[in-house]
């Protein structure tokens, strides 16, 4: 019987039971550790082959770089493996549920990637003669038309590179409009629940920032806002739906009051996903709103960008928008309005915000998504996003404190506080517990108006089964936090890393690799 091959037999637990041995490599099967390129590469290794060219006498003006640069190279197989291994240490939408509030982590369709890579878009230079890029200009123009129609606005600035850059664009348009009428207004009102980029953008443009109070419902206090309006107020920056996940019911009244007092209304459009196809910001009196194409319109977040933040503008602000922009002529040709023609075409522009025409690679992706959904599909996007968020709110509000559940249905995201957790247990512990459950945590500690805030945005691209499982997991983690389970304090247990020491990172910043001997000498 000894000769019998036993590989088909039922596996047995060895005598050591389930004790986990340390491995020689530090790897744990599919969980693979990966060194830095500086530790595995060398300066004489390369993963590229170059064309042969004849030698020429240098015309570098005596500036030859003679010292070692210190850039390690890897062969192609090593390169692919290095980054593939790194990639496996990342959570991503493709892997699972990513309910990061106010970030709209929805599925990124691969058709978007395919069209963006067509040579006619990916491989054209921004300074080619406009006759040779008519298709690219047509894409920009087509997307612009969609954004204008979906928001009910007058114009759109396409060049801002991200949401915060778009905010700056809107604020600069307001500043330029005020200057054009010789009005030295200097104050921008911002609710406390706003994204940090709002006050930062306003301050950059030289405005002073004042807070607008909120009501106990979690909405802008209209009476307090009206009381503060006056000849020094340039405008307001309001996020709608707001970061508490609520629609600002009084938005039109706010806009009317601000306009009556001579100011402008900026809307942070980060949460446009909740209302796309159902509400047009232009109907609410908005003067400027940025649209994060990487949120509402599904362009990939890429581990932190690139984003894209076109800004729709009212009739009052459109004349002040930035350069360059596309113009469609009666014969169907497109041209670019740049510095050359700005005098006749767009004399009151506040100027250029970036070198070229904006995030073309994001325009193609966003337009591909928009055309796929169409007007009917986009409306369904908002409905499903809001339905999913309310389903989560409903499924968790008896377990977690939902401070604004009494304020009406939520929009695309549900907000909870840390009220009721055991002593010493925090929102951070819940987040880390969710990591072990295989989720990316929700947004934590934002907005600032709620203690230990947890902001959950499911988006419309999640199934009911996913939401049901998440609600179950969340309830389980919250119960552990209420019961004071010490193992939650040390979570995550199953991620590639345990909790990281951010204090050490900030006290003694190590921002670049140094060869060990150099690093020791510097101690």
């Amino acid at each position: 019987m000894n000769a019998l091959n036993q590989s088909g037999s039922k596996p047995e637990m060895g005598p050591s039971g389930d004790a986990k041995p340390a491995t020689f490599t530090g790897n744990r099967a599919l969980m693979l550790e990966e060194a830095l390129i500086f530790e595995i590469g060398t300066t004489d290794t390369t993963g590229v082959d170059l064309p042969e060219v004849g030698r020429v006498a240098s015309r570098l003006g005596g500036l030859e770089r003679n010292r070692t640069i210190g850039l390690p190279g890897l062969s192609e197989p090593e390169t692919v493996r290095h980054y593939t291994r790194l990639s496996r240490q990342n959570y991503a939408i493709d892997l699972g549920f990513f309910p990061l509030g106010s970030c709209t982590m929805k599925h990124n369709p691969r058709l978007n990637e395919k069209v963006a890579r067509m040579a006619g878009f990916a491989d054209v230079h921004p300074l080619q003669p406009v006759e040779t890029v008519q298709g690219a200009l047509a894409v920009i123009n087509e997307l612009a038309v969609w954004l204008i129609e979906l928001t009910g606005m007058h114009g759109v600035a396409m060049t801002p590179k991200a949401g915060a850059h778009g905010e700056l664009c809107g604020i600069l348009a307001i500043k330029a409009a005020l200057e054009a009428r010789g009005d030295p207004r200097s104050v921008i009102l911002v609710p406390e629940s706003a994204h940090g980029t709002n006050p930062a953008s306003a301050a950059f443009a030289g405005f002073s920032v004042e807070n607008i109070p909120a009501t106990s419902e979690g909405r802008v206090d209209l009476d307090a806002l009206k009381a503060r309006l006056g000849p020094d107020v340039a405008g307001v920056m309001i996020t709608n739906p707001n970061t508490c996940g609520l629609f600002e019911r009084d938005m039109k009244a706010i806009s009317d009051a601000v306009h009556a007092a001579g100011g402008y209304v900026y809307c942070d459009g980060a949460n446009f996903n909740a209302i796309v196809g159902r509400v047009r910001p232009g109907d609410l009196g908005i003067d400027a709103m940025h649209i994060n194409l990487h949120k509402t319109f599904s362009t990939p977040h890429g581990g932190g960008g690139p984003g894209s933040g076109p800004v729709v503008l009212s009739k009052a602000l459109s004349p002040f928008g930035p350069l360059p922009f596309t113009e469609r002529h009666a014969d169907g040709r497109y041209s670019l309005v740049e510095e050359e023609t700005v005098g006749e075409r767009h004399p009151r522009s506040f100027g250029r915000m970036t070198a070229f025409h904006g995030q073309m690679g994001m325009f193609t992706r966003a337009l591909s998504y928009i055309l796929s959904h169409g007007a009917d599909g986009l409306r369904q996007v908002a409905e499903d996003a809001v339905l999913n968020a309310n389903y989560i709110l409903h499924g968790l509000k008896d377990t977690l404190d939902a401070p604004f559940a009494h304020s009406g249905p939520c929009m695309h995201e549900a907000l909870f506080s840390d009220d009721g957790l055991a002593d010493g247990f925090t929102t951070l512990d819940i987040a880390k517990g969710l990591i072990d459950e295989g989720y990316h945590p929700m947004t934590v500690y934002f907005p600032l108006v709620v203690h230990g805030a947890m902001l959950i945005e499911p988006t419309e691209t999640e199934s009911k089964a996913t939401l049901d499982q998440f609600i179950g997991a969340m309830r389980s983690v919250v119960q552990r936090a209420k019961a004071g389970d010490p193992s939650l304090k040390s979570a995550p247990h199953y991620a590639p890393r345990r909790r990281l020491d951010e204090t050490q990172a900030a006290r003694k910043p190590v921002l670049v690799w140094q060869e060990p001997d150099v690093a020791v000498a510097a101690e």
Partner: protein
Amino acid sequence: MTRYYTEDHEWIEVDGDSATVGITDYAQSQLGDIVFAEVPAPGAELKKGGDAAVVESVKAASDVYAPVSGTVTEGNDALEGDPALVNTDPEGDGWFFKLTLSDTGELASLMDAAAYKAFVEAL
């Protein structure tokens, strides 16, 4: 030498018209691990209640206000290399700056140790 406290959790120890300023033990315990402190340069003119220094933890940056008006004579350079001093010895080696008072009358509005203790307990 007398030590006074502010409602913004600074302490100031006064000796004639010169004084040393820092943040209280309560303040450092609320901020958590201090990772950076920016202190004013000698010669800086401070106004009572105005920004004087910055103290940062990993997740928060807080302004340290001048408890009284005056001219900075020295910033605590030791905090640059060892910001943890603010955690380990907030009311001693973790001081922020020294200044010459321009109006000792401003001290009258500050709390003494007993009053500050009661103030913190009421928070």
